[in-house]
């Protein structure tokens, strides 16, 4: 029997339960605001947002694998494409693109032009060091860690800081080999 291919991000997004994006955007925004109030230091807020994202990422990966029919990616290149085309689409309803690969294929950029997290956001002068969307880098790092890829994710461009797009650099640090072999009939 021919293996079932991965489903497209559009197809999955069309079938999942969806909610009003404003509720999500504003809830995230209110969380950032609350963290700024509680932690005072912008650096510390960046860290906590990343940590929250990481925790979300390690949980979301299961839903992602189950709904997308993606068999575990071994190749980092392929994985990055799947995150951008399927992952972003099925959760946030937007597609990202992958570019800026380095020569040995261990570092690339995920570029997001449309980002529902930042609708309505304008950074005040007091928050200049804030990586408002830092939860996203945490989600990617957490999810990849669950498929045995240790990565470092950093912001290269940020529209809230005056750039023309959101760009996250994903760098593969270490790939832990799978503990069990794939079965042919899967």
């Amino acid at each position, binding site marked *: 029997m021919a293996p079932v291919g991965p489903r497209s991000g559009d197809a999955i997004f069309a079938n999942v339960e969806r909610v009003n994006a404003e509720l999500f955007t*504003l809830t995230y925004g*209110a969380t950032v*605001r609350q963290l*700024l109030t509680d932690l005072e230091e912008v650096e510390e807020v960046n860290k906590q947002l990343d940590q929250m994202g990481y925790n979300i990422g390690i949980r979301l990966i299961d839903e992602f694998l189950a709904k997308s029919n993606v068999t575990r990616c071994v190749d980092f290149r392929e994985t990055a494409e799947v995150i951008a085309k399927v992952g972003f689409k099925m959760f946030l309803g937007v597609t990202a693109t992958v570019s800026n690969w380095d020569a040995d294929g261990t570092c690339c950029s995920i570029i997001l032009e449309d980002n529902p997290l930042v609708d*309505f*956001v*304008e950074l005040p002068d007091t928050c200049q060091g804030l990586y408002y969307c830092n939860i996203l880098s945490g989600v990617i790092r957490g999810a990849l860690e669950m498929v045995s890829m240790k990565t470092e994710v950093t912001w290269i461009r940020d529209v809230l800081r005056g750039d023309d797009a959101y760009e996250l650099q994903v760098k593969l640090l270490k790939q832990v080999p799978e503990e069990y072999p794939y079965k042919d009939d899967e």
Partner: protein
Amino acid sequence: MATTACFIIVSRNEIPIYEAEVGSAAKREDAAQLHQFILHAALDIVQDLAWTTSAMFLKAIDRFNDLVVSVYVTAGHTRFMLLHDSRNDDGIKSFFQEVHELYIKILLNPLYLPGSRITSSHFDTKVRALARKYL
């Protein structure tokens, strides 16, 4: 376009959070102060009126010589107040409605503290453009 038009936004706690002289007359410091004084004096009238009607646009609630005060009260009781010498009610209503949309965008910014001063220069530019268009 109106020669005199002074626009302010007052928060539900009666604190002014935005002010702009948007008339075509030359800017004079003392005139601006007088305008704001008249608007603040009209606040009490607005307070009483707001619970007696469900209309957002309350036209000509107060007068001072040839100047008229018109007001727009949002569901959250933020007050847009305009002191003007023109009699173009439709234009004033459209001005208020479009400023309301701009104001909601400010309010939806999670990093804007409701009731605090509106410092966005983008907002200021847009409000002045709307004043030129409608008043």
